[in-house]
């Protein structure tokens, strides 16, 4: 380039040369830009998954003969299928609770609050504390004669001793995943043009009709994203049900963990993991079909169409 100093032009020329080199090789350019993330995905996701798939077709020890028995054992065992069913029920219950509580919270933060940033910060704050510590705090609250019971006693109410029950597990999950779900709810609600709410009311729709025909449909993508972020980790969870649910609330994640850590039956654990992954991915695809796009990449109104 004409106006540059000598040193500058030397570097400039090299940059120009490199730019020209990549410009004439579009495939190489794509590889350089997209390569690293793909490499990470392949190395830490695809290969382990493949290893797990291979292991799941082996008999009790790795390197042994091939077999389908891990799958048949799992899919024909009433005990394990009951656990899967129980896991599904708990996950759906948690998702439903978070949908209602989280949406109400996000809605009130957006619509009625001036201190939005502060409230959002408070919502995210628990993430700064270790998950395990928070779970032990809940044990402290929920156990018989714990914080909850003594508070109830203060008001002359009977103790409930919730620890090691299904409600305790639901409370724990709701507490843990609520912040994760509120963020997409909040994002979609702030993107909602308040004029649309006014237009709906102006056209004769009361608050409830306005909510069901404008607010909810317009924030559908955010809601589905939030619910997926809740459902998937709940389905695979094993720490929360172990600590808060005791032995009566077995979830499939605990079974898988057990196969790897205590029973040392890796192939069986891998097989259960594969089945569960397939089920969850199937549910995900169903949800995206239903909801118009995971993480909102299919925008409202078809602007790209």
């Amino acid at each position, binding site marked *: 380039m004409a106006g540059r100093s000598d040193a500058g032009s030397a570097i400039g020329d090299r940059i120009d040369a490199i730019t020209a080199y990549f410009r004439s090789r579009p495939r190489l350019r794509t590889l350089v830009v997209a390569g690293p993330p793909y490499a990470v995905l392949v190395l830490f996701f695809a290969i382990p998954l493949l290893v797990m798939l291979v292991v799941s077709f082996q008999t009790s020890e790795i390197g042994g003969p091939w077999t389908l028995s891990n799958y048949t054992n799992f899919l024909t065992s009433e005990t394990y299928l009951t656990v899967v069913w129980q896991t599904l029920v708990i996950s759906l219950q948690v998702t439903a609770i978070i949908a209602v509580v989280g949406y109400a919270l996000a809605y009130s933060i957006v619509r009625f609050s001036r201190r939005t940033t502060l409230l959002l910060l408070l919502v995210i704050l628990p993430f700064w504390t270790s998950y395990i510590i928070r779970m032990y705090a809940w044990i402290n609250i929920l156990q018989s004669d714990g914080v909850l019971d003594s508070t109830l006693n203060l008001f002359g109410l009977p103790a409930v001793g919730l620890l090691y029950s299904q409600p305790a597990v639901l409370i724990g999950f709701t507490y843990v995943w609520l912040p994760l779900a509120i963020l997409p709810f909040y994002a979609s609600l702030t993107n909602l*043009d308040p*004029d649309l709410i*006014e237009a*709906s009311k*102006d056209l004769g*729709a009361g608050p409830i*009709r306005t909510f069901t025909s404008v607010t909810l449909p*317009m924030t559908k993508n955010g809601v589905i994203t939030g619910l997926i972020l809740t459902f998937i980790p709940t389905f695979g969870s094993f720490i929360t049900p172990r600590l808060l649910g005791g032995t009566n609330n077995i979830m499939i994640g605990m079974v898988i963990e057990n196969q790897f850590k205590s029973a040392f039956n890796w192939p069986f654990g891998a097989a259960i993991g594969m089945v569960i992954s397939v089920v969850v991915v199937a549910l995900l695809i169903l949800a995206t079909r239903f909801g118009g796009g995971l993480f909102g990449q299919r925008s409202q*109104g078809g602007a790209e*169409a």
Partner: protein
Amino acid sequence: MSLLHVSGLTKEFGDLVAVDDVDFDVEDGEFVSILGPSGSGKSTVLRMVAGFEEPTAGTIALEGEEIVGKPPFERDVNMVFQDLALFPHLTVAENIGYGLKQQGVPKAERRERSERMLEMVRLEGYGDRTPAELSGGEQQRVALARALVNEPALVLFDEPLSSLDRKLRQHMQTELQRIQTETDTTFLYVTHDQEVALAVSDRLIVLNDGGTQQIGTVEDLYEDPASRFVADFIGDVNTVTGRVTDLDDDRALIDAGTGEIPVPRTAIAADVAAGDDVDVCVRPYQVSLRDAATTETDATDAFASTGTVLSRSYQGSDSLYDVDTDAWGTVSAEVREDAFRNGEDVTVTWAPEHVHVYRRDDEDRPDGGETEDRPDGGETEDE
């Protein structure tokens, strides 16, 4: 009985008086515009009529019935929003049918009435598209159809044309007038754009700093502005400063730096007293130019000053000259002759019967203090 009767309407946001004791009526079938600069309170007035804001004081009666306190969805008015606020998740037909659906109109009738409305706004066959697939002008038409299909007593407009380019805006103005006539609906239109307001309205309400400046037909406001603000805001005006040296029932003597000139009392605002400093306003088309060499400048029956032509712009049938006068600085003159050249010496004159004289009041001018800056809402324009 007026279709819309607004009386003593006041809205305070904390210390700020956004709307200050506004009264006006809108008659059935009228096209009325509320015109004012930004911050004048015009949108707040509209939002109170629509039901999105509750007045601090005052009444709003629609067809004789008080509507203050009623929620927006129970008022027989529909609004065309500034950003249109079309529902992006619904089709054009569903957008238009939204209001009818809330009223419980059956689906078949909804579709039929939506289609008739689309025809009215000349968008036949657009029903199945989404708003995002339409151009800006087409979206305007859908927003209008969505309001009109409900056959409200009154349609409110919150500057919906401001986002369009000039040509499209002018086209939509004519369309608005046609549709208003065809549907026989009453329109209340808020805008800061005097061009739009003058073009479409039967009557204008001029607001400034939350208060009514003047209400009248376009001709009233142009020919007989009630304040310097209105004179300045509606059309162009020259303002020179002067002092009233004498005042009686027939005329005043005004000294604008070129000697005392008798001005008819009818041209002088009612609150002007002898000794007051005043603004003397005159429209550019009332100003005449003469060759300086052939006229005498010491006329005592007309405002006159010598000056130099600064610029000339050709405007079709007229030419607009800016003249640097010795007595008053720059004065604009809109005249038929185009004989004058830049730098030429001329005499600027206008007849005393063409002026409007207002008491000098710095708060009164459009380029003066913004509403938001007013330290105290209690201060009125008189002191």
